[in-house]
């Protein structure tokens, strides 16, 4: 318990530090290592564990942007400010729930940062942090995509797992869903226990 408290304290201090481009790799390395340590702890309840992991990762994720991108700009603009907030809230909750569910898939993999490369998209530059989860049988590629959030530093706006983008997956889903259903139904759907 004490240990957890110390970790939480340490994490909360790093919460307000914006990441510079050059720091992406080292900071992420540190964060990934911390999360790996957490995961390897025995006898820790899922809710506490996930809470700690989010503490570690929340500062580097731009969840608002992820929500907005997942919905698509065109759709996003149709919503009122309150609706946008509501959507973001439920979207992030769902994203996290889905993440927690996948936690139990973890079985002693070790994460290794392979490379951080600059990628030019249109007029902007992004940084893709290429990492690999190494297990006994195989390696899984996980890419964290950072963009320059100006005053807030570099933040993650999407993650590719084995080449499949999380944001893109949601985009395809929401687009299909909103063709036949109103926005309220989408919120209901996000709240559902069932996975999208």
């Amino acid at each position, binding site marked *: 318990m004490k240990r957890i408290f110390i970790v939480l304290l340490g994490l909360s201090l790093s919460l307000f530090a914006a990441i510079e481009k050059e720091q992406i790799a080292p900071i992420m390395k540190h964060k990934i290592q911390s999360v790996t340590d957490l995961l390897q702890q025995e006898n820790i309840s899922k809710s506490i564990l996930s809470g700690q992991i989010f503490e570690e990762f929340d500062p580097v994720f731009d969840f608002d*942007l992820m929500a907005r*991108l997942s919905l*698509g*700009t*065109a759709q996003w*603009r149709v919503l009122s400010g309150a609706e946008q907030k509501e959507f973001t809230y439920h979207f992030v909750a769902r994203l996290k729930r*889905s993440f927690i*569910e996948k936690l139990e*898939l973890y079985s002693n993999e070790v994460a290794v940062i392979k490379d951080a490369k600059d990628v030019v*998209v*249109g*007029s*902007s530059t992004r940084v893709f942090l290429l990492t690999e989860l190494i297990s006994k*049988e*195989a390696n*899984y590629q996980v890419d964290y995509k950072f*963009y320059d959030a100006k005053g807030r530093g570099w933040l993650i*706006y999407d993650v590719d*797992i*084995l*080449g*499949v*983008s*999380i*944001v*893109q*997956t*949601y*985009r*395809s*889903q929401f*687009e*299909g*869903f909103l*063709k*036949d259903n109103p926005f309220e139904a989408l919120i209901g*759907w996000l709240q559902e226990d*069932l*996975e*999208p």
Partner: protein
Amino acid sequence: MLLRLFRAIITYPFISVVLVTLCVGFLGIYTSHLQIDASSKTLMLEDDEDLLFTNAVGERYGGGDFLVIAFKPHEDLLAPQTLNALKNLSDELSALNRIASVVSILNVPLLQSPVLPVRELVKRIPTLEDERVDYALAKEEFLHSPLYKDNLVSADFTTTALLLNLTPDLRYTQLEKHKKALEALEHPTSVQRQELKQTLQNIKFHRDAQREIEHQSIKQIRAIMEDYAPYGSLFLGGVNMIADDLITYVKHDVLFYGVSLLLLLSLTLWAIFRQLRFVALPLLICLYSVLASTGILGYFGWEVTVISSNFISLQLIITVSIVLHLVVRYRELALRYTKTSQQRLVFVTLASKATPSFFAIITTIAGFGSLIFSNIRPIITLGWMMSVSIGTSLVIAFVLFGAILALLPKKRPVSTFETRFALTHWCANLVKTRGNAILLLSGFIFLLGVSGASRLEVENSFINYFKSSTEIYKGMEIIDQKLGGTTPLDVLITFTQKEELEIEALDDFEAEFAQKQSKEEYWFSARKMQIVERIHTYLDAQPEIGSVQSLGTLLSVGKILNEGKQLDSFQLALLYNELPPRFRGLILDPYLSIEHNQVRFSTRVIDSQEGLRRDALLARINHDIDALLEDDTATHRLSGLMVLYNNMLQSLYESQITTLGFVALVLLGMFWLLFGSLKVALIAIVSNIIPMSIVFGLMGWAGLPLDMMTITIAAISIGIGVDDTIHYLHRFREELAHDWNYEAAMERSHQSIGYAMYYTSFAIILGFSILVVSNFIPTIYFGLLTVLVMAMVLLGALLLLPRLLIVFRPWGTQPYM
């Protein structure tokens, strides 16, 4: 003109016989070109849109033709020797050219042995052939996985299926497409017309070659199966095998019953006439006629199919009828005019029978001609076949009968049979004394017939074509009931095309994601998966449907792998990206075409299910899926053999029903023309319709469905029925002219033409009763129905027709002035 021809035949009998023999001999050369085809392609409608669609589906998903082997080993299914035998059997079968792949319990992916998270599983999916597989888990998976239960293994785990995927016939599809394209041209040039002709020729050659390949492959497969008999019982099934076996049955029946029929006919003829010449002559004429018409068929390249396999029997009926009318007329004249020369007797026989025989044949041709209006190639062919062959019979019968009898010395006919069996006497008495009873009974029969006919069902169940004691039946039953059904039926769901995402502010993020939008792995949305599951669950719940395989199967398995939770889109995308190609081709590609935004539900209908109503089933599925898709933007369409056969049957039924009315009108016109009186024509039609209605009524009440084989019975009964009516009326008119006494004319007609009608029917009824011992159910039905039609039509012509003539006196009571 005609009389001159008859004179020539009698004057030069020897030359006439030689000429006919030469002609028949020349045509006989082409009998070797006669082909029997029972492939599913012969049973399709000419321009069935569903056929093109089914072909397109086959190309898109690779779900082409397949055969199934049901293997019931003596040992346990997973015992080493069983698996060993399975392995060797699969290897031997795979080596055959016609077989593209063999799917069995050995090589299907085991996704739950043990249950692993998806991302781990896709890294290395085991099969039964892997060393580290836990057999107990594998058995559980086979018995309970939606992928395999009641499909790859039976519920009692005693029987397993080997699915033999046949190499797709791409050449045929290509030729058909080319043909369609050429046919669609509005103003084809002469070069294009030539090309179309050539393409049609190529299609035929290709089909003939394919059929032989198919037959040989099935023989090879059976030979391989025989080697494995020590390990357990093996049955072959699948639509292609059924088609191939049908050919075998049809060939056997045509040959065996053709010969038996001739033998029985000879016995009957001997019993009736007691003179060798009247046995040999009809038989010779029958043989010549059959030889000539099969030669013509070979020459034109008309194929005998399951539907037209009865044509030889039919031709025999018509030919016997023509010859017997001639024989009876000749005997009648010979008994009456003992001093007249043989040549003169023969000439008068031919002359007096020319008109009624000609009209009888023309009306029969009209009956069979009705088949030409159907839209089904084999039925159209049957119409042409019959029309040509009975025309041939007419010519051959008159020439040979005249020439050969003219060559033979005159002999007094033996008439013991007439005196012993006095059916016609008895009928004449009934007409006189029980007239009203006949009319009442006819009315009752008509009502019974009409009410029964309204209960008629159109069904075609291949399994019911075979007796339950036959190997083919047993095999079909096992595959049908234990391994997921026989007749393929596909349901295709096409999701509405995505509109291009309208990007208002094409900022860099939008551009980045819009670019990815079209990537395949993002296709799996929850909305689509809900639809897939909904449809899959619905199809699975239908009692008529055995196996259902679709993307939904994978979703159910995924749920098991995911601890009872649905796979989310993300996991599905991973699965799509990571699944090894060899398994993808087995569990994903046949059911999903992202390119076409479409999913396929591949089902098999349990053909042997009691009371299966195919048309109603398809209608119900269409209606229900419509309702299931109501709120969702997706469309559906059914395809597969089930749909094609059903289209064919329904079209056949409609065309038969609609043309029946037309044929009745044509017949009315002909009777009117022949007898110069509308009243007579109406009487003739009525006395034909009533006996025919009893046939359909009986089928309706007995729950005997009209199928590909029995549906032609309408045309057949018209063809047979009108003959008796025409001959009788023709004779009655002659007899009436003597004394204008209707009753006396009736009695005299019964004593003369009545015999001919009675003998013809008697001979044919006796001959056709042999068909009842066939192993092939359609042959049995055909025999029974023919017998029934003949008996009814005879009674109609000897009881109802004369009674109506006596009641209505259509020719008046005065000689025309």
